[in-house]
């Protein structure tokens, strides 16, 4: 009986949360399979559901969609670059701080974390100025560098916490076995850190994929902007093609969902590893 009550309470909380989360997504889905006329009808299911909107998007048959493929490629390029570079920086930093005990390593990490006290929005203008100085404005690299800057401190912190949990004797055993620091990194550290690396790589990748503000600021050319900014352009006119906007949004939301689903095992374990110091 007690178990039943406990379960019932859980369901009472879970169902509203689930509805709250799924409703907007359902809304997007509903719009994307409706024709332009019926999109705003208010019905829970369109009278004549259609996949034509997706066809329009894929064939880039609308003014706002002329660069669809180019922009989704930009999104992908930027996200993967951010994921890879963040992972490289954070892994090396975590290894150096946690395993090689580099002098001042902890201070550097704490200083990097300290930057989170300043909201990313405040940093946008200085970042814009900096990228302008280096002549990177309107290059995908500007967004990549900005996102790596934003993602790295957290990534270093999580990986450092995860590194701290690896038994110290493994390093010592490897040293006695004759491993150089680089061999230790490659042959012992990286394989054992894999779950955390997958989690952090995914985190950085999704952060960049979902970024709007910096992308909007640093990139302005139709050929260089990621799809997130491209979607924003839909709202520039009074008569926005909502059904196409939502169809594009749905397509845009699929890769992160797929990635998250594929790596869900690592995401929970990998990101919470730093939560409690063991």
């Amino acid at each position, binding site marked *: 009986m007690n178990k039943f009550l406990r379960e019932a309470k859980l369901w009472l909380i879970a169902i509203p949360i689930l509805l709250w989360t799924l409703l907007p997504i359902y809304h997007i889905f509903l719009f994307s399979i409706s024709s332009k006329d019926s999109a705003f009808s208010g019905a829970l299911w369109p009278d004549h559901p259609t996949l034509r909107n997706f066809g329009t998007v894929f064939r880039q048959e609308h003014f706002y969609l002329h660069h669809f493929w180019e922009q989704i490629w930009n999104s992908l390029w930027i996200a993967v670059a951010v994921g890879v570079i963040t992972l490289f920086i954070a892994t090396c930093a975590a290894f150096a701080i946690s395993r090689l005990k580099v002098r001042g390593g902890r201070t550097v990490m704490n200083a990097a974390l300290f930057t989170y006290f300043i909201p990313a929005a405040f940093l946008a203008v200085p970042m814009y100025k900096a990228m302008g100085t280096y002549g990177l404005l309107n290059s995908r690299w500007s967004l990549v560098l900005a996102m790596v800057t934003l993602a790295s401190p957290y990534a270093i912190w999580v990986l450092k916490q995860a590194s701290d949990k690896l*038994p110290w*004797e*493994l390093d*010592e*055993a*490897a*040293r*006695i*076995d*004759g*491993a150089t620091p680089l*061999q230790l990194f490659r*042959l*012992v550290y990286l*394989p*054992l850190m894999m779950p955390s690396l997958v989690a952090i790589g995914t985190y950085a990748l999704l952060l960049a994929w979902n970024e709007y503000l910096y992308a909007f600021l640093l990139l302005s050319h139709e050929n260089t902007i990621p799809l997130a900014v491209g979607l924003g352009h839909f709202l520039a006119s009074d008569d926005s093609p909502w059904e196409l906007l939502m169809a594009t949004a749905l397509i845009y939301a699929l890769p992160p969902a797929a990635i998250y689903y594929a790596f869900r095992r690592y995401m929970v374990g990998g990101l919470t590893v730093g939560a409690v110091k063991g």
Partner: protein
Amino acid sequence: MAGVSFREVVKTFGKTRVLHGISLDITDGEFVVLVGPSGCGKSTLLRMLAGLEDITGGTIAIDGRVVNDVDSKDRDIAMVFQSYALYPHMTVRDNMGFSLKLRNEKQALIDQRVATAAKILNLEPYLGRYPRELSGGQRQRVAMGRAIVRDPKVFLFDEPLSNLDAKLRVAMRTEIKALHQRLKTTTVYVTHDQIEAMTMADRIAVMNEGRIEQLGRPLELYDRPANLFVAQFIGSPAMNIFDGVVQSGAVEALGVRWPANGGASDGQRVRYGIRPEHLEPASAGIPAEVVVVEPMGAETEIVAKVGDAPITVMMRGRSNAGPGERIHLAPQAAHAHLFDAASGIRI
């Protein structure tokens, strides 16, 4: 194979000095056990020999070569850790061959060395398994296998049996000793368990607070402990020790006379030590009151009170005595130990 020599080795952590000038010579092929309570510096000394800790002062030499500034990997040593320290993502075969792989040895040689070690340690059926698929004892054997494969000059063991249950510990003790007798590689073994030390060592160094209290063969330490610390540390159950005064060849303590042999002069204040197995219940002798009787089959441990002091007695066979009963104890004078009351040094 090689000898190891420590010369006035000092270690400090910040302002804390943990080793105060250790000198110790280990001969080629010898099995030396460093034993002592936690924090005595035994593991630090071993780790300094392994190259895992810097040497603050003095020198450490392996096979006549001073290794103070030599990297761990170039010292030609192999170490077995308390936690086994097996690489979790590698199979037993890869764990054992890892050091050879790092040395870029030929695969054929690696395979052959691993196979030999696996045969010695009965690990052949497990070569394809991962450490998580092995029991504690098997993991310990893999750790030893990893050491054997390298064919080092010196084996280092850092409390290798502490994580095993009591039964397995006894079995592994025998295995390590048999392994040493077979390979005859110089071995330095650290433990806090004096029984491990007694049963395995050629020589034992008893350490306390960063110093070697006594170095000697196991039975030397047992029969003639150099001071109170060694007397109490070696032997289980521990030696009975109490204060007394020497009077005409015997010791006046706890209100009775205890037979002694030794060079103490009359009136000298001493600490009198007698091992539980050198006290026997008898028809006449020192009167005592039984507190607890612990039968162990072949032997019986009796805790009795002489005056107010508890005395442990270990007798062969069985005892009919019960708690509260009065018995008499006969100490064997030849096995009595006298220590200076002030310095604790053997008289």
